[in-house]
């Protein structure tokens, strides 16, 4: 007859999520420290602001320039062109301009500050499991050749590559961004203008940003041209009128064509459910063989647009604002019982703890 030697854990003694994220018993060995959030130890090259709420790439690229150009052009528009046009045309002009301006800025910030769909790196246990499955030779003296795994997606053979940095087989359409050092789902491209990668989660913000920016630049360009035309008619001549607003005109003229072109290109990508990455590499252009078509396309423009732009917003997989477990190196097999950090959502900590209690009690009563 075996006697059990365990102490019933009192659920009331377990930490409640609202008060403290740290388990009390284990802390007697450590000094009490401010609990750290996961973004502070994030392995990728990203910058976090507002305690993990906002994230960008480490090198912001030309994001300040983008914001500056938009602000400068719009300010000049509101100061110099609007008064004239309100007097001579209609009051709607500053209203429309204002709405477009706000829309552009909001979508720009959403694109830049949102997690693009970063995949968290594999845990050591997962990585070991994957290694065990592929590496049977046991030869560790040199780096083995790139590992690939083939899967069948909609009757097409797709090769999944192994990411040595993140230690996992990349899901389809995922690519590792070398600038951010992260694997990003449905990786489109790394955009220096917004200072972030464009991927699954922020592609719709990016698309809305460039479309609304094309409207804004076209609108400002149209208003400036109308202003100049009306002024030139006023008698002083076109050249004199041009001298009054050269900056706006120059910026708008050059931006309109490039932004309109970019919007057109991305509209084509959305309609065919392609990413910039795939388009540049020519993954589905059929040059490698016959019958290679895009397996992700629904063959219908409207459905493709909906699935890219109107699908349910996927969640962020990197838990930026979750708290780190007090013992970061606790990845060992033999673990003392402590309330497990099962879920980053606070309300689940109590659930996880009570679940562990069930497990203890059940295991000890198995015989």
């Amino acid at each position, binding site marked *: 007859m075996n006697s059990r030697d365990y102490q019933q854990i009192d659920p009331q003694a377990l930490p409640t999520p609202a008060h403290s994220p740290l388990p009390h018993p284990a802390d007697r060995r450590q000094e009490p420290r401010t609990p750290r959030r996961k973004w502070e130890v994030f392995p990728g090259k990203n910058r976090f602001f507002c305690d993990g709420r906002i994230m960008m790439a480490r090198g912001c690229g030309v994001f300040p320039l983008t914001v500056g150009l938009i602000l400068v052009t719009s300010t000049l528009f509101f100061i110099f062109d609007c008064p004239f046009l309100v007097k001579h045309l209609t009051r709607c002009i500053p209203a429309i301009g204002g709405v477009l301006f706000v829309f552009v800025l909001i*979508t720009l910030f959403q694109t830049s500050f949102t997690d693009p769909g970063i995949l968290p790196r594999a845990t050591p246990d*997962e990585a070991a499991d994957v290694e065990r499955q592929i590496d049977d030779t046991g030869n560790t003296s040199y780096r083995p050749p790139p590992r690939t795994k083939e899967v069948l997606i909609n009757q097409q053979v797709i090769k999944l590559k192994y990411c040595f940095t993140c230690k996992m087989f990349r899901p389809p359409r995922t690519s590792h961004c070398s600038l951010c050092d992260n694997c990003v789902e449905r990786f489109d491209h790394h955009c220096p203008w917004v200072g972030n990668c464009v991927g699954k989660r922020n592609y719709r913000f990016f698309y809305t940003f460039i479309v609304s920016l094309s409207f804004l630049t076209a609108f400002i360009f149209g208003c400036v041209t109308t202003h100049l035309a009306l002024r030139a008619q006023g008698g002083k001549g076109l050249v004199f009128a041009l001298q009054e607003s050269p900056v706006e005109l120059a910026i708008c003229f050059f931006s309109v064509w490039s932004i309109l072109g970019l919007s057109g290109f991305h509209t084509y990508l959305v309609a065919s459910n392609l990413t910039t990455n795939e388009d540049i590499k020519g993954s589905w252009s059929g040059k490698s063989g016959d019958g290679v078509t895009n397996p992700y396309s629904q063959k219908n423009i409207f459905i493709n647009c909906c699935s890219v732009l109107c699908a349910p917003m996927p969640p962020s997989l990197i838990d930026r604002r979750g708290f780190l477990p007090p013992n970061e190196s606790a990845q060992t097999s033999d673990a003392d019982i402590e309330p497990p950090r099962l879920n980053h959502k606070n309300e689940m900590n109590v659930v996880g703890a009570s679940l562990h209690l069930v497990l203890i009690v059940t295991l000890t009563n198995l015989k």
Partner: protein
Amino acid sequence: MRQQVAVAAKVFIQRDYTNGTMCQFQTKFPSDLETKIDKQQFEETIRTLNNLYAEAEKLSSQSFIEGCLACLTAYTVFLCMETHYEKVLKKIAKYIQEQNEKVYAPRGLLLTDPIERGLRVIEITIYEDRSFSR
């Protein structure tokens, strides 16, 4: 004095990409679990999870309307409202907890919510039963 419960092994259920990039997990029964749990029970759990994830990502008329409305507000609604996906994730978390309590914990197993692992794998921890005898 504490009870030591050792982790004997971990089994990872990988993603199933045959239908594209949708979140689905393989229903193949891992050999390590043969002595621990009924194959049908396991497959039923995975199938229910797959159905829940399909529901989360489904392109329905409701999600289309939500998407259009969100676009009109420059997506600021995402900052205030809980998205459809997040609502289903809560349902999934509840289902996993329920399965753990009723089915897996009595057999010395523990399912980890895939969201904890970036929706890459379902991690099943196999616990050893270590009893202390006097």
